[in-house]
Structure formats: C-alpha cells, structure tokens
C-alpha cells in the first residue's frame, strides 16, 4: 500500500533537470496541487483503494462530457476534486454538506484574514466526531 519510500528515494534526482523543454507546469493553480495531494495521501494512508478513486473519476469525467453548463471549460482537477468528494461521501468520511458549509465560512472571511491558524476558534462546531458509520 505505501509507496512513499520509493517516492522519497526519487528525490535524489531532484537536482538533475528533467526534460521539460516546454516548461509546462504540472498544476495550473495551487488548489489543483492540494486536491492532488489530498487524494494521493489519503490513498497512501489506506483510506481507499486507488481503483475506487479511479472509478469515481471516470464517472465524473463521463458525466461532465455528457452534460455540462454551456460554455463551461473542461477542468480536469475539478473532476478530480469531485471524484474525491464522491469517494469520501460514499463511505461517510466527509459529507458534501460539511464541505459546502465550511466553504461558505471560508468565503465569508474578511480580506487579508489569516487562515493558517489552527486554534479552532473559528470552526468549533459540528465537525468533531461521531461521523461515520
């Protein structure tokens, strides 16, 4: 399950320049890298099998290709994020309502708000324990 050691070993290659002649970025926006990192680390921690995530991703992409709001551009990592939400909601780890509620709270932050604190003052409600099964 854990492939971390081999991944870390590969860091030895970091100083040599990969042939990325086109200079393309792996992630277009920071949130894409967070969505990627979440799925990979949850899988690495054994929360779900990769095939489970992949099936959810295939379903999301197919649904978007079948129907999407007119003029909406395809965003691969939006589908990726949706797939991750589907897997987590499917087994009761995190429900969609909770994500929406937290996102609304984050959206209501005043500009310049420091969201890096961890003291829990801002979000001490309803997310603690007892989710699950």
């Amino acid at each position, binding site marked *: 399950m854990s492939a971390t050691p081999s*991944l870390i070993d*590969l860091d030895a290659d970091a100083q040599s320049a990969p042939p990325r002649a086109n200079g393309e970025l792996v992630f277009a926006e920071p949130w894409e890298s967070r969505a990627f990192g979440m799925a990979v680390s949850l899988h690495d921690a054994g929360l779900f099998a990769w095939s489970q995530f992949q099936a959810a991703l295939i379903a999301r992409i197919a649904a978007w290709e079948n129907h999407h709001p007119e003029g909406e551009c395809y965003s*691969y990592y939006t589908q990726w994020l949706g797939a*991750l939400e589907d897997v987590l909601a499917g087994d009761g780890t995190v429900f*969609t309502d909770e994500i929406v509620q937290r996102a609304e709270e*984050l*959206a209501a932050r005043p500009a310049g708000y420091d969201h890096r604190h961890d003291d829990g003052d801002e979000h001490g409600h309803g997310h603690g324990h007892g989710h699950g099964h």
Partner: protein
Amino acid sequence: MSTALNPDEHLDGSGNRISPALRTEALEQLLTERGLVDPAVMDKFIATYETAVGPLNGAKVVAKAWTDPEYKARLLAEGTAAIKELGFAGPQGEHIVVVENTDTVHNVVVCTLCSCYPWPVLGLPPAWYKDPAYRARVVREPRKVLAEMGCELGDDVEIIVRDSSAEVRWLVLPQRPAGTEDYTEEQLTALVTRDAMVGVAHVTK
C-alpha cells in the same frame, strides 16, 4: 446528510457557485481536523511530482534500452520490473507495459476514460493528455491527430492506439534516431522527450 454530489453541481446553500479552490481548502481543513491528512505529508507528495518525478526517469529507461539489448528485452517482457531496476517505482507504476516503435509500427498512448499514465517514469500527465478532445480524437483519427501534433507518419506505418487503464499503463519505447551510434547513454537520455514516450513525437537528434 447528502451523499454524492450531482456531477455539475458545485453550489452553496444559496445556489451560488463555490470555486474549486474554496471547496479544496474546506475539504483539506475538514480532513486535517479529523487527522486523516497531514498537510506536511501532502506537501511532500506534491513537491515530489512537481520537481522530482518526471520524464527524465523515462528518458533514462529508454536510453538504457537503446544501449543494452538485454535490458531492452527485459523491459519489453516485464516493464514494471525492468523499470524498477533503475529505481523507478511507486503509485501508478504497478502495471507498466512497454511497446516498441519501429519502422512499420507506431504506438500512441491515450486514456480514453480518464487520465491513466505511468507516473514513476513520466510524472503527471500534461494538459493535452487529459483533454476530452485528445482522448476522443486520437482513437478516431490517430494519423490526423499525430500530424497535427507534428508527428508525421508514412502511410505504410501501422498506428496502434494503446488505451491505458487501471490494468495497464503504456509506455512507448521510441525509435533511436539515426546518426546517434556513437552517443553515450547520457547523451541519448537528453534527446528523449515526454511526448516521444507517449507516442506523439519522434526522437530527433
């Protein structure tokens, strides 16, 4: 409690669209609070794929196969195992099958359903590989798509489209360019591009 989202629904309680950036931040907070993800571990995974794991790994595999016939035989027979000999392994690298391009056969890789890709040797896929247009068209009209991408092929060359999946991750062993007979393995490594290992480009000197 709701379960899965409607696929095109990313709305908040008032019907406003929530940006994926906010959704992602919300989800990361919730998972972190529950002890299910550690942002520092996430950082490590992200940094690995942003800087360390990329097509250079695959280029080393290809260059070794070009210079070592026994390695090439092992690579074509047991892709994952031969790639691991060079120290490249990890997620999405469990079932790599290597196919060789020749004067008469040209392999090109796609994932029609999502974006399966051999991460340990190529890193994460580029935008065009994930794009619906590439995924649909390269199956229907590979010769035309390849020509549009600058990879011209003679009419006598058979094109085989390899559809990646959870069971198989394809890697193309491109043709070694003419005039490189005296090149070292290191010099050859520098010639090999990601696009050539997906099969949408030739390796040139």
